[in-house]
Structures are given as structure tokens and as C-alpha cells.
């Protein structure tokens, strides 16, 4: 265990129950008085900073019921960033900033014994005061058909995230316990008739009690604040296995996983082709290989084939090989090549995980991520200290791939648990683009403002005395994600793709989609495309270092790229995160959350006011019916549907308002600080310009809660839009893929489960891969210098294809009785060159003919709005 942590424990024990043991400790530990003037600025993550590289990955989750995240979520109070108070302080910000840096260095003087287990990242468990303990007397009921706890107590149980403690997860219908106001979902069930219960002994304890009529339950409120007293500290764990693996693997888990992985034809190999000769030791040419050991890796053993092929094919065809397919023990596998100078990077994936085209895209993406993280493949694989990190990455990456590309934990692979179904084809998720959620104007503007303010780092207004010190970082850009969707990006296109690929491959999107994250913090030196790798040498890139700061909370993720050097203070080696900038980013994120952007985005995702997609239904109508409706649809469109849709949304709005008043946000407004004030005043001036006359918002009382309401109520005016022509919606799916801007527009993930749509989309994605590669041909030819065209061996019939469509027929799978009826649908892809290349793919039912150009235009309109 971390020494810091132990020490902190000691402190906690020495000063028994205090309101905030955390702060107390930090005051003692840092002999600088700075921390005492703010109560939330204690970097709880500080001990997680890596000693030598300054990297940081800190994840703090709310406790939660497995598979029942939503029930605990509303109870988790928003972490109040009382940064606002901090800002009110009259002391010069930068003066403090510098002090803080000193203090940080200071605190590092404390002896730290290196942790043996986790070498790169450490987690510190955040603990705080315990909730009240309650005693409840329950009558035992008997419903034999349910599980024991349900039948006896009328409570269904889950486990707290440490996997040991019993948690109240819900109530079966008509249970008496439900009406007991002292039992809440999320409570920790401590004991039954004074017998302490754990997940293991619960059933046996209840068994003994089954002849009694009443039992005494002891419960403790857990949600919101983690209980830390009873369980030993090393068992305390409010993290899911996924989070634990994200932060670092245990040695044993890793070993188990390696053994398992060796059975699959999967792997990565980085080679120095110059060193391959008879005289050298056997694995001299291997720079990096995973899974280990070399002797067990298929790829490593057979590397000779691929080194030869790589060299040979280049000789024969004057082109570089992209991929090779082969059977290994009757399993089809695909191998991809990347050559750089005399180094060769090989990826191997089984066909059950990834098709050839997916393999190529996935390996390109991983390569891109490495370039972003380590500047070059050489740096990535040759520097010994990176190795642990890369191993860790591939352990998780391959686990995911083997589980049909769905994120999972290694115990699924090692524990022989059933892996997911044979992999569905992925298309959107392997393209180097960020799925984007277009926000309504007002919300967009607010987020835009917030990010711009963060990026500007203009702190003059908080200082009374003029500053004579340089700032530490310039912010190059930032991007905000919600639930894995890009909301807004101020990054350069290429950098956005870098950041997106990094977050996707590392699983941060999965984290923000599935886990109740309280705090996510990542700090890492990175090499964005625009700064180091771009071929464009005209632009002078300042000499310096860039860092990626990821700040996450709940479903939101804010990515910031910062530059040290250039116009700021010269960069130090292995610089750790600076508390001030971290807080700035966190405050920005908190402000955005206060604005209600997450709620808006969630609502956006769930109601999907953008282009509507539908799922196939058994076709009762004949084609002629559809065509008949075509003519009518124009008139009906105007009158029909409008009122009902708005009314639904309006109702939601009023609901929202009710919850608002009771929500924690209002409590916060009272102490929202000067930063908000500055925002407020600016908003006011903006608004008075915009809404000049007759705006209901009175300037004087205008604050965030109103802004929030304005933003949230904006959805009221937005109607679901139908992309396809005709009265009935026939669109199943659409994708707009813009490689230049790095964004992708598509419908939110499918909410409705339907076998038919799964089969259709699988087929759709397969076809998209094919279309995409045909379009790549066209683009390649367009960009080819004229003198090369004559020499090119490209098939001349394929050089200018811009649209491709296929109509498929598929039986209706959902309804057994209806197996006979078939659905016909088109998959169409279109390439647009102007203003920059863009690809649109749609999938729609065949009944009504559609024009892809028109559809693409409508998708674009939707974006522009």
C-alpha cells in the first residue's frame, strides 16, 4: 500500500471523526499555508502522480449497484467545486500559483517508497464520513418462488462495489419492505439480527432465520459518501473491475490473461528487420511483442514469414503489403503491416474478432494512438519505461477484441466465461472520427463560451497587483464529450482525431458511458499531430512540450491540450499536472454541468430530435400504399404530427422545472462566485444584444439557473425530423463521415433491441466497408500527381466511383410467425468531394425511392442548424 495512504490513515485515526479528514490531512502534510484557504482544492489525486514521468491517472467512482447504475445516481450529490470562493480571494492568482508549485515540490520531499505492485499508476481511495446507521424491524414474508432475500425480507440485494458488502438493490413488487421508509435502495445491509452479513454468508444467515417472524436489520446509508470504517482499507473499493483494470492490472490477473491470450491467434510485434540474421541470438530482432513470452506467441514464432513477405512483395509489386490472411489451426486470421524505415510493426487478429478491413483500420488507429502518446513508434517500443504501460494497454485491448469488440474485463477471458456472440461488424467505431452530437444554438454558444474562457486563461480580473510572472501553459485547444459523443471541439482537426482515438482506445468513453465516475483525471505528455508529426514544415512549431489533461465527471469528459514552452515558461522534464490548471478545467466542466448541458445532451440522445431512424416492422402495406401516401404526405406534414410532438416535449420541460427547484443546483447558486459573475455579466450583455426587446429574462435576476432553464427548454421547440421522403419513416441508419474534420454524424445508439435491425445493420456495415474502400480508390486517384497516373496500375474502371448502392433482402427475424415475410432495404454510400471529401452512408427500407444527395443535404442542414 501507498505510504502516503497509510500515513493518512494514521492521521485519520489520530483525529477521530471529523467533518473532513481529507483536508485536515492535507494541511498537515503540506507545510504551505496555501491549501487552508480553500476547502476543495486539495488535490486528492496528488498522490497518484507518477514519481518520474509526472503522469497521472486518477479515477474516483461513486459506489453503485451492479447493472443498476441509474438508481444510485440521483442520490450522488454534485461535487461542489467551491472554486468560486477561491476566485474571490484577493490574492494574486499567479503568486499563489507559483507557491503552489513550490508546495508541490515540497510535498514530494516526503519519502515515498516505490510501490512494488503498480508501477505506473496508483489509485488512492477516497474516503469520507459514514452515513447514519438505522435499525429496522421487518416482518418476514414467504414467497418461495423468489430468491432467498427477496422471499424472506422483501428486498432484492446486490453487492457494493467491493464485492463483499450487501447492498439493497431494489424491492420486488408488493414487498412490505418497500414501504419502510428507513430502507433505501443503495443502503448497506450490515447485519441481520445482529449477525453481520456479507455477500457470502447472507444466504446461510437467512436460512437460519427462516422460521422467525421478525428480524432486526441494521442498515447504513452508503450512497453519496462511501463508508470506510468497518472494512479494512485494502478491501475498500468503490471501483468496478473495469476501472481497476483501467488503472492497472494486478500481476496475477495479467499472468492469467497472458496464458489465455497465447491460445488465440492475436498479437502485436515490433521488429527491427536489420537485426534478423542467422548469427544473431534468436529473438534479437524482436523489439516488442505481446502477448508474452515469445515462445508462445503465434506471431513471434512465425514472424519470419511476414518479414520475408513484406520485403518480397515490395520487390515484386513496388507497393507495400497491407494485410495478409491465413489459417492458423483452421482459424482464419488477418495480419496487418506497418513499415517504418527498418522497423516493422505487425498486428494479428482472428477473423472472429475483426475482418480484414476492420483489422487494417484498428491497427491504424492503435498506431495513431501510439504516435500521439509517444511521438514515434521507436520511442514507444524501445523505451523500457513505457513497456508496462503498453503491455497494460494491449492486455485490455485484446481482451476487448476477443469479446467481440465490447469492453470487458480480463476475468471474462481468463475465467472461461462465455464471450459475447460472434462479433458484429463495426464500421463507425473503427473509423478515425468522433461521433458528434449537434447541440442547439444557445447551448452550443454557452459551451463554446465556457471553453473559450478556459482556453484564453485570462486571469487579469482576479489580480489586484500586476503580474510579472509568465504563465505555465498555453491551452492549445479543448474538446467536450458527453457519453462518448463529441459536443464541441476547439482542437485542430487532426488533434481532435488524436484525442478521440486515445480516449476510445483507452476506454475512457466506455467509462463515461457506464460507470458512475465522480472524478476522472488524466495528465500525460502527448505529441499531437499538429505540433510534432505533421509534414507541413512551413508553420513554425514552438519548441516545447504538450500535455493532455482529461477531466471527467459523470458522463462528461473534457479534454484539454496544453503547451509548455513557446510563449510560456520553458517546459520542464516530466512535469506533473498543475493543480491550478486542473482546477480550472474542473471548474469549467462543473460550470458546463451547472448549465444543464449533460441533461440536455442526455435528452438529446434519448429523444433524438435529429433525423429519425426506425426499426423494421413487418410490412403490412404494399408498395403502392407507400407511393399513394407520397403525394398526400406533403400536406399532412404541415398540419399533422406537430402538436402532439411538441406537447410531449413541453410536458417534459415542466417536469424538468419541478426537479430543478428541488435539485442541488439551486443550493449552489447562492455561493456561485466571481467567475460565474463574470460569466453572468457577459451573458447579460450578450443577451441584451440578442434578445434586446421583450426577453422575459430580467437582467438583474439572471443567473445560471435561468440560463440552465433556457438551455433545457430549447428542446421544446425542436421536432423530430424525418430524413427520408414520404409519409412513413423508412430510414434505418445513416452515417456521415467527414475524415477531414474528424467528425461523424449518426443516430444515437439503438435503443430498441431487434434481431432484424441487428442483422440489417451488420450487413449495412459490411457493405459500408466495401463502399468505403472503393471511395478510397477514387480519392487516391484524385490526389495522384498527373505524372503518376500513367504509371499507376489502378483499375481504370474504379477511379471515379462516387456512389454505390445495394439492395438486400432479409427475412423478418423478430417474429417467428412472420418468418416468411421479407424486408427489402437499400444500403447506399455516396462520396462528396466538395468542399472537402465527405462520405454519407444510409440504410433505408425499399418502399419509397430515395435520393442520396437529397438525404445528405438534409443531414447537413441538420448540422447547420
Amino acid at each position, binding site marked *: 500500500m501507498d505510504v502516503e495512504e497509510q500515513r493518512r490513515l494514521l492521521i485519520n485515526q489520530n483525529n477521530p471523526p471529523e467533518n473532513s479528514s481529507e483536508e485536515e490531512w492535507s494541511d498537515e502534510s503540506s507545510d504551505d499555508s496555501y491549501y487552508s484557504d480553500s476547502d476543495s482544492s486539495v488535490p486528492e489525486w496528488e498522490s497518484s502522480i507518477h514519481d518520474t514521468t509526472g503522469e497521472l491517472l486518477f479515477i474516483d467512482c461513486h459506489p453503485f449497484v451492479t447493472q443498476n447504475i441509474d438508481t444510485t445516481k440521483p442520490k450522488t450529490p454534485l461535487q461542489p467545486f467551491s472554486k468560486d470562493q477561491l476566485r474571490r480571494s484577493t490574492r494574486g492568482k499567479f503568486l499563489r500559483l507559483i507557491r503552489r508549485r513550490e508546495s508541490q515540490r515540497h510535498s514530494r520531499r516526503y519519502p515515498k517508497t516505490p510501490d512494488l505492485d503498480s508501477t505506473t499508476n496508483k489509485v488512492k481511495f477516497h474516503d469520507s464520513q459514514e452515513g447514519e446507521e438505522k435499525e429496522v424491524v421487518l416482518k418476514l414474508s414467504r414467497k418461495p418462488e423468489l430468491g432467498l432475500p427477496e422471499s424472506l425480507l422483501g428486498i432484492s440485494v446486490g453487492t457494493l462495489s467491493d464485492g463483499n458488502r450487501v447492498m439493497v438493490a431494489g424491492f420486488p413488487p408488493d414487498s412490505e419492505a418497500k414501504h419502510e421508509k428507513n430502507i433505501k435502495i443503495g443502503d448497506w445491509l450490515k447485519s441481520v439480527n445482529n449477525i453481520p452479513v456479507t455477500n457470502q454468508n447472507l444466504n446461510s444467515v437467512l436460512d437460519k432465520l427462516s422460521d422467525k417472524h421478525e428480524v432486526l436489520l441494521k442498515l447504513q446509508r452508503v450512497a453519496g459518501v462511501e463508508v470506510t470504517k468497518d472494512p479494512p482499507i485494502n478491501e475498500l473499493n468503490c471501483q468496478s473491475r473495469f476501472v481497476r483494470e483501467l488503472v492497472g492490472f494486478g500481476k496475477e490477473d495479467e499472468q492469467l490473461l497472458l496464458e489465455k491470450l497465447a491460445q488465440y491467434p492475436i498479437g502485436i510485434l515490433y521488429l527491427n528487420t536489420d537485426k534478423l540474421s542467422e548469427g544473431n541470438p534468436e529473438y534479437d530482432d524482436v523489439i516488442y511483442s505481446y502477448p508474452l513470452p515469445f515462445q508462445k506467441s*503465434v506471431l513471434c*514464432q*512465425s514472424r*519470419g*514469414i511476414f518479414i*520475408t*513477405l513484406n520485403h*518480397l*512483395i515490395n*520487390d*515484386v*509489386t513496388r*507497393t*507495400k*503489403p*497491407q*494485410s*495478409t*490472411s*491465413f*489459417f*492458423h*489451426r483452421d482459424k*482464419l486470421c488477418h495480419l496487418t503491416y506497418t513499415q517504418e524505415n527498418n522497423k516493422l510493426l505487425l498486428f494479428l487478429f482472428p477473423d472472429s474478432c475483426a475482418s*480484414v478491413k476492420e483489422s487494417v483500420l484498428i491497427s491504424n488507429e492503435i498506431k495513431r494512438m501510439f504516435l500521439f502518446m509517444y511521438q514515434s513508434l521507436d520511442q514507444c517500443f524501445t523505451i523500457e519505461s513505457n513497456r508496462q504501460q503498453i503491455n497494460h494497454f494491449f492486455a485490455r485491448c485484446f481482451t476487448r477484441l476477443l469479446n467481440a469488440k465490447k469492453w470487458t474485463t480480463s476475468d471474462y477471458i481468463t475465467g472461461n466465461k462465455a464471450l459475447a456472440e*460472434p462479433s458484429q461488424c463495426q464500421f463507425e467505431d473503427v473509423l478515425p472520427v468522433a461521433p458528434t452530437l449537434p447541440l442547439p444554438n444557445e447551448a452550443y454558444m454557452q459551451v463554446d463560451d465556457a471553453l473559450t474562457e478556459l482556453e484564453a486563461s485570462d486571469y487579469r480580473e482576479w489580480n489586484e497587483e500586476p503580474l510579472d510572472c509568465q504563465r505555465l501553459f498555453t491551452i492549445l485547444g479543448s474538446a467536450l464529450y458527453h457519453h462518448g459523443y463529441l459536443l464541441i471541439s476547439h482542437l485542430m482537426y487532426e488533434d481532435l482525431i488524436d484525442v478521440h482515438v486515445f480516449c476510445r482506445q483507452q476506454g475512457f468513453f466506455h467509462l463515461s458511458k457506464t460507470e458512475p465516475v465522480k472524478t476522472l483525471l488524466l495528465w500525460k505528455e502527448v505529441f499531437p499531430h499538429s505540433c510534432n508529426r505533421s509534414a507541413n514544415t512551413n508553420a513554425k512549431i514552438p519548441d516545447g512540450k504538450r500535455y493532455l489533461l482529461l477531466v471527467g465527471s459523470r458522463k462528461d469528459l473534457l479534454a484539454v491540450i496544453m503547451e509548455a514552452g513557446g510563449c510560456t515558461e520553458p517546459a520542464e522534464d516530466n512535469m506533473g499536472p498543475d493543480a491550478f490548471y486542473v482546477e480550472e478545467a474542473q471548474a469549467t466542466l462543473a460550470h458546463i454541468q451547472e448549465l444543464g448541458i449533460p441533461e440536455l445532451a442526455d435528452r438529446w440522445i434519448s429523444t433524438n430530435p435529429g433525423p429519425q431512424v426506425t426499426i423494421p416492422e413487418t410490412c403490412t402495406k404494399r408498395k403502392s400504399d407507400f407511393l399513394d401516401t407520397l403525394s398526400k404526405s406533403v400536406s399532412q406534414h404541415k398540419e399533422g404530427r406537430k402538436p402532439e410532438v411538441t406537447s410531449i416535449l413541453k410536458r417534459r420541460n415542466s417536469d424538468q422545472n419541478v426537479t430543478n427547484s428541488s435539485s442541488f443546483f439551486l443550493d449552489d447558486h447562492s455561493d456561485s462566485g466571481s467567475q460565474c459573475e463574470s460569466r453572468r455579466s457577459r451573458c447579460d450583455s450578450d443577451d441584451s444584444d440578442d434578445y434586446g426587446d421583450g426577453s422575459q429574462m430580467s437582467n438583474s435576476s439572471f443567473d445560471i439557473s435561468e440560463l440552465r432553464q433556457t438551455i433545457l427548454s430549447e428542446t421544446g421547440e425542436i421536432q423530430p425530423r424525418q430524413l427520408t421522403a414520404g409519409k412513413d419513416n423508412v430510414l434505418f441508419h445513416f452515417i456521415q463521415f467527414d475524415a477531414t474534420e474528424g467528425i461523424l454524424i449518426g443516430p444515437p445508439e439503438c435503443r430498441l433491441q431487434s434481431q432484424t435491425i*441487428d*442483422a*440489417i445493420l*451488420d*450487413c449495412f456495415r*459490411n*457493405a459500408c466497408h*466495401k463502399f468505403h474502400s*472503393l471511395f478510397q480508390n477514387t480519392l*487516391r486517384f484524385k490526389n495522384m500527381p498527373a505524372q503518376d497516373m500513367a504509371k*499507376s*496500375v*489502378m*483499375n*481504370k*474502371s*474504379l*477511379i*471515379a*466511383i*462516387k*456512389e*454505390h*448502392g*445495394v*439492395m*438486400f*433482402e*432479409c*427475412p423478418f*427475424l423478430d417474429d417467428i410467425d412472420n418468418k416468411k415475410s421479407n424486408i*427489402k432495404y437499400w444500403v447506399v454510400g455516396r462520396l462528396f468531394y466538395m468542399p472537402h471529401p465527405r462520405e454519407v452512408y444510409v440504410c433505408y427500407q425499399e418502399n419509397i*425511392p430515395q*435520393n442520396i444527395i437529397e438525404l445528405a443535404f438534409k443531414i447537413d442542414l441538420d448540422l447547420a442548424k
Partner: protein
Amino acid sequence: MSAHVVCVTSGGGLPIFSRKKGNTDSLPFSTIGSLNGVHMFGKSQKITLQNTVTEDYSLAWKEYHDSLVLIGISSGCTIEVLTKTLDSIFNAIVLIVGIEEIKSQRNIERFKRELRICYPLIDRLLDSLDCGDSGSRHSSDLIGLVETILCPENHLIQIVLDSFTECVDSLFSCVLIHGKIAAATNSWWSLHPEEIKLLAILAQSENTSSSKDIPVFLPYKSPTVAFRFVCCTLIPDIQLCCLCGPTPVLSEVEFSATNCFKNSADILSSAIQCHPRNFHSTCHIDGGILGLLLVNTTYGKYMITRNPHQNSNKKNASSSHRLDILRTFFYQSVLTFLVPSEDSNEDAEISNKSEANVGLETYWCSEYHKCFAMKIRDNILAVLFNSSIPTFAMRLITEKTLKNLISDKQICW
């Protein structure tokens, strides 16, 4: 714009032959050795190399009966087409020497000598690859399918052919016009499409004498027992082929052929006018259509035409390019989406889901042309249009044309 195919023995890696297409150097011996070497080394690692793709090229390895390895390299075509071509080439080898000879490999030198006959077949098969050069004479060849010609006289020829078949006491015979089947007996169509295709090519290869009498092993029907493939030229560019046992001797066949066809000379000479249009001149075809490809997947036959209109007799420069476009469209899109692959039948469980999705129609639009293909039962029609045609009109025109073609009794498709 090049293609290579190399054959080596799988045991010793001895080179059997190496053929190429396009203006490229032959592969050096060391390259052949390495290409085979990686395949051989893979076997010791329980790896069976299948294929490799580069930006422009495809490579495929395939081993047959643990005795021969075929390696193909080609630019511009898909792996699927290249692999099919390798299969066809192997079938051509079986056709000439029989499966036993391949499996036993008693005398490599003799084996090589025997395979010389194969070379024209192999070279012709390589012409089916769509390397993207329109220079090839045989850009109407499709791999694994046999080309037909739809003359108005086909009915009459069929009648004569049937009577000839009785004379020579064989069930298998056909009439070829420029190597395309004009008429064939039902039994001839019952052969595997590969066999029909190979026999048609064989009849055309090295047409020096007026008659041929070659022993052939049918790769699917009888890979071990040889038939006699007899082929006589009726008039220039029209050949009569039949498969028969030890009797009748060639002269008797020739005699029967003359007897049966002597009264149909006019029919034959008018039928030959159909070439290179390959197609009924009376059949009405929409004016916007630049080329047609009609395929029947059950019989494995197709008809391709690049100028379906009567007035376009004069050969314009772009018309041979049309065949290339149609062929590429067929390989890239129709084969991928509309023709279910045979492999998927083997592991039906896995491909159940994707098999549920059957392609019916496909199209693409290029800057310079548009193509549309439609499948009705086992017939597929691929149509090449001018790029100015509206996309929605292609579907209607194709549907109408296809229905016309398959219902028209005159055409005898």
C-alpha cells in the same frame, strides 16, 4: 497491369511453370522460391497462407491435394477473383493430365512436358483477371463462367446439333461461334460450369488444324478417367465439339458432322454475323444502354455485349473499355453482393446471420458511367449506362430489360 501465376510442387518446391500477363518481366527464380518458401514454412507453424493485399496488388496462395501449390499475383483485382482464377487454372491442369498424375508426381519432367498443352488455357484464364487494362483481346472473359452468343439462328442450330449427337452416339456436344456457345445439348449444360468453360477455351486454343482429338479429364465429372474431346471446324470460327468414348474415331465424327450440317451452311454463316454483338439484333434495347451482361448462375453462362444497338456497328474506341467496366462492376459489386459465395454453405451456422441478407440489386455511379445490376431468381443482368442517366431511371430500365430478355422465346436464353 500485370499478373503472374506460378506453380510449384508442394513437397520439394520444384517449379512446374510460371506464366505472366501484361508487359512485365517474368518472376526471377529466387522470388518464386521465396514465395513458395513462406508458404512452406507456414505449414510448420500450422499456418496456411491464403492471401496478401497491397494497395494495388493481390497475392494468393493455394495448395491442391497436397501436391501442387499455385501462387498468383495480380494488380487491380480482388482476392476472390484471383483465388477463383487459381482454382480454374488448377482445373485446367486436371483437364489435361488428370488428377492421378498430379497426386502421384512420378516424373516431374514428364509432368512438365505434358503441361505444355495447358499453357494456352492458363494464359487465356489469366485474361479473365480485370487488371484494368483494356488492351486485352479477351476482356469479355469472366472467370468460372462460360460465354454464350445469342444468335437468332440458335434454334435451328440446336435441332441440327441434336441429330448430330445421335449420329455420334454421345450425349455431350455443342456448337461454338468464336468460342462462345451458340447451342449445346442438355447434357452439355449438365457439366460443371468450370468444365464447360475449360472445354470452350480448349476448342479455341491453337487452332491450327481443322479438327482436334484430345483426351481430357473432366475435373468434376471424371477426374480419373479420360474422355475424348473431339472438335471439328464447320466453317471458319464455328466449331462443333463433342465428348465421346473410345469410338467413334475422328474421321467418323467428321463425317457425321459434314452430313448433318451440310444443309445448314447458310444458317451458320448468318449466325456468325451476330459476332461481336453476341446478341439478337431484333430485340429492343433502351437507347441509354451502352452494354449488357446477362448471367445465369445455375448454368454458369453469360452473354456480354458492348453495343446492343443496331446502328452502332462501327467500332468506336471506347467500346472495348465498356466490357472492362462491366466486368469490373461484375467482379467488384455483383459477385460480392448478389452472388452468395459457395464457402458460406460449409459453415452455415456462423454465416447464418449474414446469409439472411441476400443482395438483389446493386449499382454504382462513376464520373464517367453508371452501372446497375439486378437479380431475378438465378438470372442477373448488369447494365452499363451513360453517366447522364438519372439514377432512379436505371432501376426501371434494368428491370424491364431483364424481364424482356428472360421471357423472350426468340432469344433462347
